[in-house]
């Protein structure tokens, strides 16, 4: 009896070895980076963690293929390394020597990736399934772009500022114009005033034409001849 059991076990393990090996068509490689993810709080990878992994994959398969009852024993792992990385393959519950096609396995894992990651306190980057790219979550986008709101605020303030400045400028000029009539001078007085004043004197008009430069005439230096 014991011999028969031992023989059966040998057969199973041999069969397992044949089903699960690297680069087998329906097998996937898994790579975990526990120390990178958790630092000091990293746990050691041992048989129990391995069991949890097999159970989670079985859970994912159950969720995906709803009519089949997968067990942890249906998930076979092999070639474990120090990295920690290993290969796994999923066998069908009805027929343990048949493996589930890789597309089904990939889809099951993709749909339940979040749950699998959380079981190990890891993320898409630190729990990698080679050949199953993670579905990256899009960046958070608010309904109204933030920059447009800020732009609108600044634009509003600037426009208000401009209108305010123009209006006060016009008002200032109006009040200056009202005060003007008191200071009207005779044209003769203007002529007698010096060059520095900004009056409408003939002197100033001549200066603007470039014919005479009052500012530079106070010396007897030679003028720049035309």
């Amino acid at each position, binding site marked *: 009896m014991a011999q028969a059991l031992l023989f059966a076990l040998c057969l199973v393990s041999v069969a397992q070895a044949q089903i699960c090996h690297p680069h087998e068509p329906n097998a996937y490689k898994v790579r975990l980076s526990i*120390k990178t993810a958790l630092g000091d709080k990293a746990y050691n990878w041992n048989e129990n963690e391995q069991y949890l992994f097999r159970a989670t994959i079985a859970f994912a398969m159950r969720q995906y293929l709803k009519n089949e009852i997968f067990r942890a024993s249906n998930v076979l792992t092999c070639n474990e390394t120090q990295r920690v990385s290993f290969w796994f393959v999923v066998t069908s519950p009805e027929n343990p020597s048949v493996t589930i096609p890789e597309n089904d396995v990939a889809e099951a894992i993709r749909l339940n990736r979040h749950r699998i990651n959380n079981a190990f306190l890891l993320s898409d980057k630190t729990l990698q399934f080679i050949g199953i790219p993670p579905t990256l979550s899009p960046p958070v986008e608010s309904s109204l772009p*933030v920059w447009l709101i800020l*732009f609108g605020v600044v634009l509003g303030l600037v426009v208000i500022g401009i209108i305010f400045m123009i209006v006060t400028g016009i008002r200032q000029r109006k009040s200056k114009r009202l005060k003007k009539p008191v200071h009207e001078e005779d044209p003769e007085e203007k002529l007698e005033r010096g060059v520095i004043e900004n009056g409408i004197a003939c002197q100033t008009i001549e200066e603007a034409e470039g014919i005479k430069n009052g500012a530079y005439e106070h010396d007897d230096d030679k003028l720049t001849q035309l």
Partner: protein
Amino acid sequence: EDMEEDRPSWENPLQFLFACISYAVGLGNVWRFPYYCQMHGGGGFLIPYLIMLILEGMPLFYLELAVGQHTRKGSIAAWKSISPYLGGVGVASVVVSFLLCIYYNVIIAWAFWYFFHSFQEPLPWSDCPLNINRTGYLEECEKSSSTQYFWYRETLNITTSIEDSGGVQWEQTVCLILAWLVTYLCILRGTESTGKVVYVTATLPYLVLLIYLVRGVTLPGAINGLKYMFTPKLEELANPKTWINAATQIFFSLGLGFGSLIAFASYNPPNSNFEKHAIVISLINSGTSIFASIVTFSIYGFKATFNYENCIDRTILLLMDTFDLAEGSITAENLESWEIYLNSTFPGEYAAVSSQVKVCDLQSELNTAVEGPGLAFIVFTEAIKNMTGSQIWSVLYFAMLLMLGVGSMLGNTAAIITPLRDIKLLSQYVPKEVLTGLVCFVSCIIGLMFTTGSGNYWFTIFDTYAATLSLLLIVLVEIMAVCYIYGLRRFEKDVEAMIGHKPNWYWKIMWAFVSPVLIIGMFGFYISDYITKGAATYQAWEPSLGRLVMKKYPVSASVFIGILVVTAMSCIPIAAISTFIKSRFQKQEPSLK
């Protein structure tokens, strides 16, 4: 009537000082000087830089302030009064300032865009966007980097060549309109409004630089950048390009020849001590460049170290994954010995991944020299996104760029508006607000060409060709006119009338001999550079490769460049000739007078 108004003036000398500092200290101090410093041997570049400051920077600055303060007019009327044939110099200044205004405000538009986007968590340029089936990142972003992608695709939406205009980008257009509205708000009342704005635009950048300095030097890896900058490579001093670049940088950094300094000084009381101002402002300008370099290099050092460490980590991960080694077995220290061991033990597998085992080199990271907008919008943003509290740093940085840009725009617009307001017809019938508004409006409309898909290529054309040669010619004519046409003796007497003493021998020697020689040298160098280069090329962004490629300018662009270069310069001879013709005409018909 407006004619009865006295010439507007600064409320106090501090406003004038701040206006000049605000104008001179601009984006070039932040993104061109550190580049030249890096290219020409770090700390050693300071030697030619400071020598050029003394030989040409300060004397030319003094000259422009003196002319402006003495004539109390904008550049056109000021040069006309120096000599009636030289009105063209003023007109050339106005034309160059106008060209500058058109393209400079686009930078402020970009700064606004980045500023508004800095309030998001996380920063939009920190991650690549996902591709359609969400399995990875967009190819264009993957091949280049997230900051480059954000700049070239999301900000500029750049086309692959200058011929392809790509349509107007509405986001950039509204930012440009905002930039012009802000400029208008600051200048619409002349010195009254400008004088107040410069209090902020002159001081805020220093505050930000100081905060950045404190943060920068405490960042990990900053010391690498600082060591790189301050280790002088004295052999660079033997390279003539170093001296030319130093002279060029001083020249353009001080903003000579645009007419802005003349405009600002014309609002001064006649006896304000511009000699002191000239020395102080040029020293502050150079000091700010050096200060900004220290900040930039400490940030560079941080970025280079960060990227270097990332590169090492990626290599370690690759080796661990390929050879299934336990985590933590390979570290940065034993990486080299591991590489040798793996290469010898598993040569086949190692060879397969050796192409990806990039040699991580800190020096090559530091050597990535970038100048211009790329420094601010690509390289700096990359550093900022890795700093803790990146939103605040980003907001501060772009606020600083805005202040620097607006400060310079105040001077650029003053250089156009002050001479226009000297024309009696304009100031009599057109109120100041309308004239200013018109200048802003026209510049904005023409500036819309920079908001198209190919806008950045046109921007580069303007940036490289619009002002360079013209300014050298303008300043050369200015200095020759004052020294040899007007006469140094007369000029001395005018200066004495203003500040109480004649300029001493240092100033006179510089004006009469040294500065003109330097300018002629720079002028000759640029001309020969343009001629020998032949057909000009430009860098175009290639989305499929994720990097810039060299392309030749089409004929239309080359013709446009030629027109641009010649436009301002031709004003000088044209105006001189027309004055000559007019005077001949008047001499022949004295009865008309």
